[in-house]
């Protein structure tokens, strides 16, 4: 099968969906040339640097029968649009009694590792998960990126796509044929029997690398990628933990009120799953600090394959 990058897979999703649906249009502070060439400057607009206005405009256009795609670029820039995300987009369908739909895709990159310092290295998806009314995807492969973005554009709700900066150049198999990936369906990236690692985005790959190392030590690791944070495939995660009896959660974000905390709770608050636990649940997250610039500092902040493997060894040795 052909291989394309994570970034190229996203662009393919946009091209296919914009061809398929003339009510889609794309706003971002830089218009992507491949989209401008195909769809023209009416549907693909380079905008003023006014993310607050763009985020709100998407809501009005969606309520008028369109399917806007707004590229915030980095999640950093979504924060200047938080009124529109929190007070408007997430609530408007419910608050107005469901009288019309608001199909919107907000897109941004997340994550660190590029020596971009605190403002440009963030993974704040749990801030958005805390709201009711937004769906969100967090793909880890080119295949998942394309399939989930196509579903996101067709969804009738505001969806945020968090795309990992570290993975943009990653190559992976993406078929030529049309496909979509449903929301709320986790992907078991590796099957195993001793420990479940639920990993997000870039850490899926670090978890897979850790699993290789651990296999040599006789530890069989299952790697579960939720792929969508809202809705979360609770049942697949619980079923995996009921099988292995051990859980490690790996997330590039900090631990406090993070997606990792949510995943750990989904497992421990379910009595059938809790009874299967043979060890405490461990999280491998970023340190709870603003992300620093200097390599010697940034490198200690983020989780990686070694830290994941170490956490697995701990849960394997707990009584």
């Amino acid at each position, binding site marked *: 099968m052909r291989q394309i990058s994570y970034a190229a897979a996203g662009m393919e999703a946009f091209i296919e969906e914009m061809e398929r649906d003339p009510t889609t249009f794309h706003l971002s502070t830089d218009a992507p040339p491949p989209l401008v060439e195909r769809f023209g400057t009416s549907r693909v607009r380079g905008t*003023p640097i006014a993310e607050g*206005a763009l985020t709100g405009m998407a809501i009005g*256009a969606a309520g008028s029968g369109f399917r806007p795609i707004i590229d915030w670029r980095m999640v950093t820039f979504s924060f200047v649009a938080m009124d529109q995300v929190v007070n408007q987009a997430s609530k408007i369908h419910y*608050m107005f009694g469901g*009288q019309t739909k608001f199909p919107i895709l907000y897109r941004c990159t997340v994550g660190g590792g590029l020596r971009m310092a605190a403002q440009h290295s963030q993974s704040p998806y749990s801030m958005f998960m805390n709201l009711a009314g937004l769906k969100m995807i967090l793909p880890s492969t080119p295949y998942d990126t394309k399939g989930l973005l196509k579903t996101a554009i067709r969804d*009738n709700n505001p969806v945020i796509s968090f795309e990992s900066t570290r993975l943009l150049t990653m190559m992976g198999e993406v078929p030529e044929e049309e496909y979509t990936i449903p929301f709320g369906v986790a992907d078991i990236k590796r099957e195993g029997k001793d420990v479940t690692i639920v990993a997000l985005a870039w850490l899926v790959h670090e978890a897979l690398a850790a699993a290789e190392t651990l296999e040599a030590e006789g530890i069989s690791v299952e790697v579960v990628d939720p792929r969508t944070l809202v809705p979360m495939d609770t049942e697949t995660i619980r079923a995996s933990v009921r099988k292995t009896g051990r859980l490690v959660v790996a997330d590039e974000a900090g631990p406090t009120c993070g997606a990792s905390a949510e995943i750990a709770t989904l497992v421990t608050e379910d009595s059938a799953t809790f009874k299967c636990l043979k060890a405490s649940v461990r999280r491998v997250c970023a340190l709870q600090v603003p992300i620093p610039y200097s390599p010697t500092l940034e490198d200690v902040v983020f989780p990686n394959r070694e830290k994941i493997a170490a956490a697995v060894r701990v849960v394997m040795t707990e009584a």
Partner: protein
Amino acid sequence: MEISSEKQRDMLRLMQTIRRFEERASTDYVAGDIYGTVHCYIGEEAVAVGVCSALNRDDQIISTHRGHGHCIAKGADLNRMMAELYGRETGYCKGKGGSMHIADFDIGMLGANGIVAGGISIITGAGLAAQIEGKGRVAVSFFGDGASCAGPFHESLNIAAAWKLPMVYVCENNLWAVNTAASTTLAVQDVAARAAGYGIPGIVVDGNDIFAVHAATTEAVTRARAGDGPTLIECKTYRHRRHTERPSQPDVRPQAEIDAWMKKDPIDRLVDHLQAQQGQLSVEEWQAMDAEILQQVEDSVSFAKASAFPSPDRVTDDVFAA
């Protein structure tokens, strides 16, 4: 442009409907039948009706926290409005929104909004949709003097002007942001002056003169439909009542200022205008019109009271669309 006497009477009817609806909403709020809070538009009716009477049904508007007037002026159903205030399942939002979140997308009313300036970019997106669609629709943003100091106003006007979106921005300058005088927060005397920064027309009108509002809007709408871009219209007006109907709501406005504006009541002015012209509106006709309106408001309360509260098991409905 000449407005027919029939249309003038329709305008009067809508203005008086807003007033009577809100007088009743205030009474029922204080009595405890309506929850949360109620912001009355009374005194500013000529703006909503003057603007909306210059629009087509498929043109779109967005409102503010003070939204009943815009709803009624755009053609919303009194029964469903009152039922929403009463928190009933027959309300516009099935009882999930209340006074600050009434919307009716079928008539192009994209919602009241509890965040000052929160609607301006949303309706600008409706204007973008109208431009891409190319069917000649226009979109109108209502907001106050306070919102004109907020970021969304400036971001939206810049985009609308740069892209020549079919927009009309209507500032209802009632001189006060809750209890802070606009004269102490605006860097310019007129909000309309801010249009110059975006290279678009900025017009000041007497917001209590419905004909002036209507004429300015008609010109702005014509310009928007022709593809010549947005207009900022500042309507100088005044709310007769406190910021909200909460009995403990303070009101620091000088009594002399309130008294002076009460003398410029927009409904009185339209009634006087019609009555000054032979045969346009007799005293009896005006009394009959008012009685009909009062009955409609009474009917809306009956409708609301006869409607069920939403069932608790509906609480998770509509978080997401299907």
